[in-house]
C-alpha cells in the first residue's frame, strides 16, 4: 500500500498513492496508517486526491484509522474525487470528518481558519 506521511507544524499530511481503497487493501491501509502516524502527534489530514474509488470496506478502514488516533487527535479528509465524495455523502461520513478541497487548503485552514473550505 503506497502511502506517505509529511509532518508539518501541528499537523501531519498522510497521502494515499493508490487508485483504490477497497476490500482487497482495507487491512493493509489500516496497518500502514498505524505505522505512519505512530511517533507523531497532532491532527492528520488524509489526502485522497489520487484515490478514485472507495467501497464500504475502505470506508470502514478509514473509520478504523480515525479511531487509532484516539480521542485527542482528529482526522480530516482532503481531495475527494467524485466517487469517493459520493460514498462519503451516502453514508453521512461527510458529517463526521471535516472535508477540504485539497491538502493545501486543509493545511492553510489551520493557519487561517477563515480559509476553511467546503
Amino acid at each position: 500500500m503506497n502511502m506517505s506521511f509529511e509532518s508539518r507544524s501541528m499537523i501531519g499530511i498522510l497521502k494515499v498513492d493508490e487508485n483504490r481503497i477497497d476490500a482487497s487493501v482495507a487491512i493493509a491501509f489500516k496497518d500502514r496508517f498505524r505505522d505512519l502516524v505512530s511517533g507523531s502527534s497532532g491532527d492528520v489530514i488524509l489526502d485522497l486526491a489520487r484515490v478514485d474509488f472507495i467501497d464500504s470496506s475502505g470506508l470502514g478502514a478509514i473509520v478504523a484509522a480515525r479511531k487509532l488516533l484516539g480521542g485527542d487527535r482528529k482526522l480530516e479528509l482532503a481531495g475527494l474525487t467524485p466517487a469517493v465524495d459520493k460514498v462519503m455523502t451516502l453514508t453521512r461520513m461527510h458529517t463526521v470528518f471535516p472535508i477540504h478541497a485539497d491538502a493545501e487548503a486543509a493545511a492553510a485552514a489551520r493557519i487561517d481558519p477563515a480559509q476553511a473550505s467546503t
Partner: protein
Amino acid sequence: MNADERGMGPRALISPHFPAQDTAVRDALLRVDATLRSEGIGDDLRDRTQIALAEACNNIVEHASPYERCDDPAITLDIASDRGGIQITLRDKGGPMPDGRLPAPDLPPLDLDDPLSLPEGGFGWPILRSMTRALSISRRNGQNILRFRLPAAEFPGAQGQNAL
C-alpha cells in the same frame, strides 16, 4: 416513449465470471468499467455502477467462505445497458440470504460526539439500496440471483434522458 425507444431493448455488454475473492472482484470491476467507458457511458453512471457492484460482490465474498461449504465460490455478472441506464444481474452459489430477504436499508447510527464509537461496517447494504432501483433477490436451483438497475440520471425526471 417514441418508436426508437420501444425498439431498443437492453443490450448485453459484458458477463464476467470470477472467483468470489477480493482481488478477483477488483479485477472484474475494472474490466466492467473499461467496457462501460468504451461504450461511451459517462463518468457519473460509471462511478455509481462501480460503487453498487463493489457492495454487491463484497457481500457475496463475505458469505462464500469455506465454512459455508460452497463448492463453487464464484460470481457471474451480467451487465446490460438500455436508454434508461445499466441493468445488472449477479449470480452465485453461496448460502441463501437470511430469511430470503434483503437486509434493512438503514445506515448504522453515528454519534458525532464520540468518534471512537463510530461504526466500521454496516454500510454496504444501505449504499446498495440507496444507489440502485428495482433491487431484488431470488434463489433458484441453489443459486442466488441479485438484480438491480442504475438509472442513467441519478434523479430521474430532474434532468437528462429520463425527463420525458
